[in-house]
C-alpha cells in the first residue's frame, strides 16, 4: 500500500467518520439523498447506502470494505439534489461526469475523506481458500484483517489484501469536494502514474499476449457487469454491445466478440477512464479487464500529457487536436 | 570557440612531393591555432589516383583502409588538406552505403570497412569549427595592401550533395578568411572553374587554355596573387605558369599561394615554416611589398 498507516490512524478514522457524519447531517436537509456505504449481509462486505433521513446517517460506515464507486449512481439521479461520499478515486469519476455535462455541479454535494485503500475481495477469497461463505467475524486494523469463518480464524496482512489500484494510489484525497472530513494525505500527479504491470505484460511475445487474452476471455459470460459497474459507461441501455444499429457485435458466444467488446470499452473510455477498477472488481469470473484501460491511459498520458478526472474544465484529448502534435511522429514512407 | 579541437590528419600523397608547402603550412597553422592534428598511422594512397577511373571498388577499398586506420585511433572524423583525397574518401563512404558495393569493398579488405568516419577539409574545419572571427583575433601581421583573389577549383565543394560545404557555385570560405587577414579580396569570377588538371598529362593544351584563362582573369581584376586550397590547382597555376605564358604569349607573374601559407604569414609564422621558398613563381616582391605597406600604415598611425 502506498500510504503507510500509523498506529494512531485508527483513532483518526473514527474521528473523521464522526466529522463526516456531522457534515452530512448539516447538508442533508437541502438534499434528496446522500449516498455512502454501510454494513452488508456479512461482516466482510459493505453495501451502498442511500441516506434520506437523519437516522440513516448513523448506519454510515467507512472502512476498507467501502469498495464501490458510488459515482456510478449519479447520472441516473440527474435532476435530484444528491450528496455523495467519495474516495479519492471515486471523486475523479465525479469530475469526469461533470466534464461531460452528465451531471450538474449545483445538484451535487461531495463529501470527501482521506482514503487509505480498500480491499480486493478476490484476494481475500483466495486467501480463505476460495470460499467466503459464513463469515462470522471480521475486524480490521491498519496492518491486518482478522476473519472468522466456519470456526476457522484467519489473520491476513492488510497490505496484501488491498486492491492493486490502492497500492499505487496517487489520489487518496478527493480531488473535488464540498466537505472534507479528516486530514488530507496528499495527492500526486499524472507523471507518477505507475504502469509497470502493463509494461511487463507488453514484454511478452506477440502470440503470448494474444493467446493470453483468448484464454482469459474464453470464460467471459458476456454478463456486462464490467460495463454496468463502470461509472463512465453512460450509454446504459444504448450500449453498442447490444445494439443492431450500429451492429458492432453479434450476440453469438464467441471469443472474438468478447475480446472486441473489451477493446470497444477501452477505446470509449480513452481519455475518460480514471482507473477506479470497478470493471475488474465486478467481473464474476475475474478477467483482468482493467489492463486494457490502463494501457489506454498510459498512451493518453504519454502522447497528450493528459489524465482524466482531475480537472472538470479540461477537454479530453480525443475531442480536441493541435495543428502540430509534439508527441506524434508520423510514419515516413 | 571550441578549445579542444582534435583531428586525425590525412596528409595525402601530394603532401610529400609537389604540395609539400601545403602540408607544412597546414600543420604550422593548426599548431599556431592550438588545433591538435594526429597523423593517421600507416596511411596509404586514398585511391583518387587513376585507380578510380579503372576500378571503383579498388579505389574505395583504398579509401576504406585509411578510414579504418582513423577508426583505430578511436576518432570518428578525419581532415585532409587535399580536395581530391577528400572527394575520394567521401565518395567511398557514400558508395559503401550500397550493400552490394560494400560487400565488394569488404572482399578486398582484411576486415569489414568502417562506414561511420566523417571527413572534412582543413579549410572546412577552420571556417566551421574554429571560426573566422576567432582567426581574426589571432592575426598579428595583417596582409596589408595585398589584393588577392580566391580560387577554389572544381572539386572542393562539388558535388554539393557529397561535399556538404560552402556554396557550389559561389564559395566564400577563402574569401572570408583572406578578408579576416586584412587582405583586399577581389571577387574572382572563375572561382570554381576547372584548371584542366585531369587533362594534365594527355592534353597539356587544355591545361594551357583553361589555366591561362584563370591567370588572365586574375590579372584583369587586379589580383596580385591567387590563393588556392588544392594541390593540383596550385601546381597548374604555379609550376606551369611559365609554360602557360609560353603557350599563350602572356607575361604573367602571379604568385599562387596555398591559403594556409598566407594565413600562417598573418599569424606571424616564418616564411620558412610555411614553405614559401617552394613556390615556383617567386612571391618575394609581393611579400616585401606587404611588409612595406604595413610599415607605411604604422607610421601614418
Amino acid at each position, binding site marked *: 500500500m502506498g500510504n503507510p498507516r500509523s498506529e494512531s490512524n485508527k483513532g483518526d478514522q473514527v474521528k473523521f467518520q464522526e466529522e463526516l457524519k456531522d457534515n452530512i447531517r448539516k447538508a442533508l436537509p437541502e438534499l434528496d439523498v446522500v449516498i455512502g456505504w454501510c454494513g452488508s449481509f456479512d461482516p466482510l462486505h459493505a453495501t451502498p447506502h442511500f441516506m434520506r433521513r437523519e437516522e440513516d446517517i448513523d448506519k454510515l460506515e467507512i472502512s476498507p470494505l467501502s469498495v464501490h464507486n458510488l459515482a456510478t449512481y449519479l447520472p441516473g439521479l440527474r435532476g435530484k439534489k444528491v450528496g455523495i461520499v467519495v474516495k479519492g478515486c471515486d471523486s475523479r469519476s465525479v469530475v469526469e461526469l461533470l466534464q461531460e455535462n452528465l451531471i450538474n455541479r449545483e445538484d451535487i454535494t461531495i463529501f470527501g475523506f482521506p482514503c487509505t485503500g480498500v480491499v480486493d475481495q478476490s484476494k481475500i477469497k483466495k486467501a480463505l481458500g476460495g470460499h467466503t461463505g459464513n463469515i462470522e467475524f471480521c475486524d480490521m486494523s491498519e496492518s491486518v484483517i482478522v476473519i472468522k469463518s466456519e470456526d476457522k480464524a484467519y489473520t491476513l496482512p492488510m497490505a496484501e489484501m488491498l486492491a492493486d489500484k490502492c497500492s499505487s494510489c496517487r489520489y487518496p484525497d478527493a480531488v473535488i469536494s464540498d466537505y472534507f472530513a479528516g486530514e488530507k494525505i496528499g495527492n500526486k500527479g499524472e507523471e507518477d502514474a505507475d504502469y509497470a504491470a502493463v509494461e511487463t505484460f507488453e514484454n511478452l511475445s506477440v502470440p503470448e499476449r494474444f493467446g493470453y487474452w483468448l484464454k482469459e476471455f474464453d470464460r467471459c459470460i458476456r454478463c456486462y457487469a464490467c460495463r454496468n459497474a463502470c461509472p463512465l459507461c453512460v450509454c446504459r441501455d444504448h450500449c453498442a454491445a447490444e445494439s443492431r444499429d450500429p451492429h458492432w457485435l453479434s450476440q453469438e458466444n464467441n471469443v472474438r466478440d468478447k475480446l472486441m467488446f473489451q477493446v470497444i470499452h477501452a477505446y470509449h473510455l480513452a481519455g475518460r477512464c480514471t482507473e477506479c477498477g470497478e470493471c475488474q472488481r465486478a467481473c464474476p469470473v475475474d478477467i483482468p479487464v482493467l489492463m486494457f484501460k490502463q494501457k*489506454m491511459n498510459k498512451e493518453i498520458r504519454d502522447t497528450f500529457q493528459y489524465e482524466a478526472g482531475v480537472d472538470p474544465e479540461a477537454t479530453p484529448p480525443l475531442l480536441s487536436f493541435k495543428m502540430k502534435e509534439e508527441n506524434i511522429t508520423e510514419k515516413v514512407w | 570557440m571550441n578549445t579542444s579541437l582534435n583531428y586525425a590528419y590525412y596528409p595525402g600523397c601530394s603532401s610529400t612531393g609537389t604540395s609539400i608547402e601545403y602540408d607544412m603550412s597546414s600543420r604550422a597553422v593548426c599548431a599556431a591555432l592550438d588545433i591538435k592534428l594526429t597523423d593517421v598511422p600507416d596511411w596509404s594512397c586514398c585511391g583518387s589516383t587513376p585507380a578510380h577511373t579503372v576500378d571503383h571498388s579498388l579505389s574505395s577499398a583504398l579509401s576504406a583502409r585509411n578510414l579504418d586506420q582513423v577508426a583505430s585511433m578511436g576518432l570518428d572524423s578525419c581532415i585532409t588538406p587535399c580536395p581530391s583525397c577528400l572527394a575520394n574518401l567521401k565518395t567511398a563512404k557514400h558508395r559503401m552505403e550500397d550493400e552490394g558495393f560494400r560487400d565488394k569493398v569488404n572482399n578486398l579488405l582484411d576486415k569489414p570497412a568502417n562506414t561511420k568516419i566523417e571527413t572534412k577539409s582543413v579549410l572546412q574545419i577552420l571556417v566551421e569549427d574554429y571560426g573566422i572571427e576567432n582567426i581574426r583575433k589571432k592575426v598579428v601581421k595583417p596582409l596589408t595592401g595585398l589584393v588577392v583573389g580566391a580560387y577554389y577549383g572544381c572539386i572542393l565543394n562539388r558535388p554539393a550533395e557529397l561535399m556538404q560545404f560552402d556554396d557550389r557555385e559561389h564559395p566564400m570560405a577563402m574569401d572570408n578568411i583572406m578578408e579576416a587577414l586584412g587582405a583586399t579580396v577581389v571577387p574572382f569570377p572563375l572561382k570554381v572553374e576547372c584548371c584542366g588538371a585531369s587533362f594534365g598529362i594527355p592534353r597539356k593544351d587544355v591545361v594551357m587554355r583553361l589555366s591561362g584563362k584563370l591567370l588572365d582573369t586574375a590579372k584583369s581584376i587586379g589580383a596580385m596573387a591567387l590563393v588556392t586550397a588544392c594541390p593540383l590547382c596550385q601546381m597548374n597555376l604555379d609550376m606551369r605558369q611559365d609554360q602557360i605564358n609560353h603557350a599563350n604569349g602572356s607575361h604573367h607573374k602571379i604568385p599562387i599561394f596555398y591559403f594556409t601559407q598566407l594565413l600562417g604569414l598573418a599569424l606571424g609564422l616564418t616564411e620558412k615554416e610555411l614553405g614559401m621558398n617552394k613556390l615556383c613563381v617567386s612571391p618575394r616582391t609581393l611579400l616585401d611589398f606587404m611588409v612595406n605597406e604595413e610599415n607605411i600604415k604604422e607610421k601614418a598611425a
Partner: protein
Amino acid sequence: MPVLTGKELRIVGFLCNWCSYGGADTAGIGRFNQPTDLRIIKVPCSGRIDPLFVVKALMNGADGVLVSGCHPRDCHYAEGNFYARRRLEIMHNFLPIIGYEPERFEYTWVSASEGQRWQQVVTSFTEQIHKLGPAPKILGPEASDTLSLMQAAL
C-alpha cells in the same frame, strides 16, 4: 474471395474521399503498378474512421489495415484529419496490448495529386505486412480452436 494463398494477404484500406481515394485514382490513371492485396473502403473523411473499424477488421481476419487521409491542414472538412491523427495514433499504440503488432496498422496522408506517393505507400505497406506474415485469426466460438492452431503454427 479467399486470399490467394502464397500470393496475397488480406489488407483493408480506409481512404478519405477527397484526398487519398483521389490519390489512389491518380495512381491508377498513371498506371503505377501496385501489389494487389489491398481492398479500399471509401469514407468521406479520415475523421469518419472510428479506430474501432481498424480493430474490427483485424479481429475479423485482416492481416493489415491502412488508413489514409488528406495532409494535415488540407482536410476538406478542415479538421477531420486532426481528430483522426489523435485517435488513430492512440489505437496504433494500443494494439500491442491485445497481441497485434502495431505495424499491422498504419495511417498516413496522401493528397489527390500524389499518385506516386500512393503507389509507394501501398507497396511498402504491403511489403511490411508480408514481412509480418498472416495475423492470428480467431476461429470458432472457443479460444481453444484458435489456440491449438496458433500452437501448431509456433
